[in-house]
């Protein structure tokens, strides 16, 4: 039988020699051009990183192609980033441009560094999950095609981190992204009380509902949803398969903005609602692509250097954000969950728009 609990391969066996030699002794770095980092160690040695975009959902043959490149240019050493880009790790500066040339010829985008838009952190969608309100890979591909230029250049005020999650579970980084694309349901789960007794546990189903919309009948082993209290989070479906919530006509996408993770300048922040609903329009989700592009462009032309999306919005005010982007403000933008009152304006300080 196979050995268990061996854990992952020791990362030390995966490090290129230049890293092993200079581990923990890096002095500074420079971004030589989009997608190319140079790290200089105390020893004076240099490490060159070439970053290439990836659709993340990749075939084994695609991985082998990456391996081929790594073997050709960097002795077989590479890594992936926390945003799923590929990084080739070179110790020879002379190989950088040839590598980039070959990557380009193979249609790998080289970039994602500095004040760029990097890869979109995303999730499974219709490819593999059971609760999605939209696809993941599709909208990501459609959007990256359109904003490709921001990946291969560094002309934004600061980097813009985009994430997509296909349902409110928010696998990924959606709740703290500069721009987040979130699949949402908008109709109440359709409970099948003939199946509930067999596949669901009543108390945990009742407990799963954040707004207390579910009433359970312990004797009949059935549940009822109070439609007015349901905000379509789908959490009951996670717990009780007899409460499917997907609805092709009413599922779609919401857009969130202004989140961040780093502690640079301002503290980490949650993303906030910008657009409550856009329709699912496969295969290229034009409304979503358009909406995100608009936000990026308004940001690009109004933010000051080094301002993240959320920092820009906080400086000019959300009133102004809605005016500048032309996005309509609705009652849905006003929080009504448990800490809602914290978001209400408790001051006469505001702008007219």
């Amino acid at each position, binding site marked *: 039988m196979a050995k268990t609990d061996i854990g992952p391969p020791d990362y030390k066996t995966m490090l290129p020699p230049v890293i092993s030699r200079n581990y923990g002794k890096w002095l500074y770095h420079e971004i030589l051009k989009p997608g190319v980092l140079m790290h200089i160690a105390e020893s004076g040695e240099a490490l060159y990183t070439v970053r290439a975009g990836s659709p993340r959902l990749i075939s084994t043959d695609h*991985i082998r192609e990456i391996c081929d490149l790594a073997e050709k240019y960097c002795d077989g050493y590479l890594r992936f980033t926390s945003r799923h880009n590929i990084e080739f790790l070179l110790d020879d500066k002379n190989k950088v441009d040839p590598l980039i040339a070959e990557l380009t010829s193979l249609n790998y985008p080289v970039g994602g560094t500095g004040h760029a838009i990097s890869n979109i952190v995303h999730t499974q969608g219709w*490819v593999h999950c059971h609760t999605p309100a939209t696809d993941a890979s599709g909208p990501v591909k459609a959007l990256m095609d359109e904003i490709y230029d921001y990946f291969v250049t560094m002309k934004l005020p600061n980097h813009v981190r985009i994430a997509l999650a296909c349902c409110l579970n928010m696998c990924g980084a959606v709740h703290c992204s500069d721009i987040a694309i979130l699949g949402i349901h908008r109709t109440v789960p359709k409970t099948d009380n003939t199946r509930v007794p067999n596949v669901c546990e009543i108390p945990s189903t009742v407990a799963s509902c954040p707004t207390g919309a579910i009433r359970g009948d312990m004797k009949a082993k059935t549940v009822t949803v109070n439609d007015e209290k349901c905000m379509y989070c789908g959490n009951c479906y996670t717990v009780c398969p007899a409460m499917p919530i997907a609805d092709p006509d009413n599922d779609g996408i919401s857009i969130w903005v202004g989140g961040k993770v780093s*502690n640079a300048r301002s503290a980490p922040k949650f993303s906030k609602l910008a657009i409550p609903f856009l329709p699912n329009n496969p295969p290229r989700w034009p409304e979503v692509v358009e909406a995100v592009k608009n936000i990026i462009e308004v940001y690009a032309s109004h933010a000051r250097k080094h301002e993240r999306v959320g920092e820009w919005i906080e400086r000019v005010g959300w009133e102004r954000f809605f005016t500048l982007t032309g996005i309509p403000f609705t009652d849905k933008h006003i929080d009504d969950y448990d800490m809602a009152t914290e978001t209400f304006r408790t001051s006469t300080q505001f702008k007219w728009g």
Partner: protein
Amino acid sequence: MAKSKTPLLDELEKGKWPSFVKDIKQAAQKSPMAEDLLQQLELSYKDKIGHWKHGGIVGVKGYGSGVIGRYSDRPDLFPNVQAFHTLRVNHPTGWFYKTDALRKLCDVWDKHGSGLTNMHGSTGDAILLGTKTEHLQPCFDDLSAAGFDLGGSGSALRTPSACVGPGRCEWACIDSLDVCYNLTMEFQDKIHRPMFPYKFKIKVSACPNDCVASIARSDFSIIGTWKGKILINPAEVTIYAGSDLDIQKEVCDLCPTKCMEWDGKTLKIHDGDCNRCMHCINLMPKALRPGKEKGATILVGGKAPIVQGALLSWVVVPFMKLEPPYAELKDLIERIQDWWDENGKSRERLGELIKRVGMRVFLKAVGLPAVPQMVKAPRSNPYVFFWPEEIQKEVK
């Protein structure tokens, strides 16, 4: 030319960004599973709805986690994805690979699965995307032989992850890779055998830039920081002054604590006021470096919104030295997990439990002292609890 069976997905082969559709089609050349995935996905694009059923429980021997069960709701149309489970393979810390290891992974997966992967999942695993139930165990056996193991899923410790840190980054204040790997090895059992109220995530970033989104996406966030003066190299400051960088406007004016002074010649930092946001260091990497006394800030409770709303992790230890074997750190993790395990309801994350019972109760239970660094501001409501022993004390 025959009409394409996937006209909608074909649209996503166009455009400059690499196309996942191409990859699925590539895999489909070898794998009927991948072919059926493609067709089912096309149907989803037509129907605007997913075609997967609610997952079932499948796995490999001895483990409770590492596999996500998945079944098609149209096995009639797509028999090869009737079962289509993913394996979560724990990545080498920092996502560093030598190609021979990667190739082995590919070979195992071509043998047992769809030939499709996510490199990586957003918790950090190498996701092997879709295989049949009967392939799970043999696939695991081959993975194990190739030196790989599964990551976490379900109510277990999830695969910890770390930023590249000392592997490449000059700002690393802790050895994020070693801390992460050490914890991963120490807690193998907790990763593979779900025994918690819910999932538990650990992420390690070696400085406050938090390149692994530790504060937002983990229950236990370890983030490198320092004490004492930011190290200044005046010669390099002078060089920056002559460059494109406007030190006053871009650096000093954006310092959140306004603790920097620049007179055109000398850069002064009032380190006592600095909150170590990294901004100045980020902009002047040659001139500025984190201070000498290095360690980590420990924060807990981060998570996505389900059920009680999203949380960012909260500071519980402002500064902890981190050196192998990380005894103090591990001890704290154990104390916290034990308390959570005992007190948490089913599907209640650590942050939600603390939210429910109060920070005061948490701190007492795990033995951490209250310090002002834990809060943005003290409470504004007057609903203050006193411990019984404090009342007795006051009575003279």
